C-alpha cells in the first residue's frame, strides 16, 4: 500500500520505477519528486476496487496472477524466432583490458571495429578474433559471440 509518508522516503529513481513497472503511469521520467508522488497517490485512489457484491471463490488453477517478477535483457528479436520471442543479443567485445557487452548481433566485425574504435581504443590495424580464432572483417556476429580486437603486446620491461 502506498502512502505519502512511505513514498517520500523513496528516491526519485525508485518512484519512477513504481510508476513505470508497478502502476504503468507514463510520462514521469522527467517529473519532480512531489509531482510523481501526487500521480502515484491519485492513481492508487482511482484504481481502488469497488466492493464486490457477488464474491466467488476461484479454483487454484483459476486464481488470478497478482504479480510476476521477471528480468528481461533484450534489444532485438532473433530473426529466425517467432514474433515476440525475445532473447539476449549482446556480444562481448574487448580490446586489451577494455571490455563491454554491446548490442552488435548481426553486424560485421569490420563495422564493429569502426563503431567502437574510440570506446575501446581499437587500433586501425587491429584484427578481430571471434571466440578465440581470427575472423574476417565480413564475419557477421551471432548472439553469444565473443569478439576481441588484438591490442599490441607491451614492449618495455
Amino acid at each position, binding site marked *: 500500500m502506498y502512502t505519502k509518508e512511505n513514498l517520500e522516503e523513496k528516491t526519485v529513481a525508485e518512484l519512477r520505477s513504481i510508476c513505470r513497472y508497478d502502476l504503468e503511469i507514463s510520462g514521469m521520467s522527467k517529473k519532480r519528486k512531489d509531482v510523481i508522488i501526487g500521480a502515484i497517490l491519485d492513481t492508487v485512489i482511482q484504481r481502488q476496487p469497488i466492493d464486490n457484491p457477488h464474491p466467488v471463490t476461484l479454483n487454484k488453477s483459476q486464481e488470478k496472477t497478482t504479480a510476476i517478477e521477471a528480468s528481461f535483457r533484450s534489444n532485438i528479436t532473433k530473426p529466425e524466432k517467432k514474433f515476440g520471442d525475445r532473447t539476449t543479443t549482446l556480444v562481448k567485445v574487448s580490446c586489451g583490458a*577494455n571490455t563491454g557487452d554491446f548490442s552488435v548481433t548481426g553486424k560485421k566485425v569490420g563495422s564493429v571495429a569502426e563503431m567502437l574504435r574510440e570506446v575501446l581504443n581499437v587500433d586501425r590495424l587491429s584484427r578481430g578474433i571471434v571466440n578465440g580464432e581470427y575472423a574476417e572483417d565480413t564475419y557477421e556476429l551471432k548472439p553469444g559471440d565473443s569478439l576481441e580486437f588484438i*591490442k599490441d603486446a607491451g614492449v618495455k*620491461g
Partner: protein
Amino acid sequence: MNIKIIGLGGVGSIFSEKICRFLNYSVQSETNVTLIDGDTYENKNLERQEFSQFGNKSEVKKRDLMNKFNNIDFESFPYFVNRENILEVINEEDLVFLCVDNHKTRQIVSDYCKDLENVTLINGGNDFEDGNVQIYLRKEGIDLTPDLCAYHSEIRRAEDMLPSEMSCEELSQSEPQLYFANLSVATIMCWAFYNVTKGNYKYSEVYFDIPNMSLDSKIRKVKK
C-alpha cells in the same frame, strides 16, 4: 625445476625477488634459477629497479638473492640473449620468464622454444600505463597455448634492435616507464606461474590498464 629469468630491468628485477621468495619457502622440489642480462645497473635505473649495488644486473641480482634464499641454486649469465647464445640459455623442460624490453628478443626466444619438445615460456611487457602477459606452453612437441607471435604480428615482424646490437648511447636512451606498470607485469607473471604449476592454462594472455583500473584475460586457440 630449472627456471630462467631473461631480462632484469623494471619487471625482471622485481619479479625475480617475488618468485624466488615463493620458490624458497613454498616449493619442495630442487630449484635452480638462472638470471640473464648483459646490462649494468646504474643511477638512471634507481627509480624502478631493485638491486643492492651497481654492476652487471645478473651478477648483482644473483648475490642479492643468494643472501636471502638459501634453498635455491642461483646462476648468472651476464650477456644479452641473441640467436647465437640462446642454445646455452634455454634447454628442454625449462620454465622461462621473459622480462625484456624489446620485441626482437621475444621473437628469438619464442621461435627457439617452438623447436623444443617441452618448455614453458611466460612473457611480460608494458607500455607506460598498460601491458600484458602471455603464457606459451609446449608439451611433447605440441603447443597447448599459442606462441608469442601467433596473435602478435608486431612480435613476429619485430623491427627493433637487440640490446647487443645497440650502441652505448642508444642503450642509455630509454623511453620513460611507470614503476607501477612494471610492478603489475611482475605480479601477473607470478599469477601465470602459479596457474601453470596448477595445470591451469585456460587463459593464455592477460591485459591490464592502469587508468581504467581494468584487467582482462583472453582465451586464444592454437593455430593449426
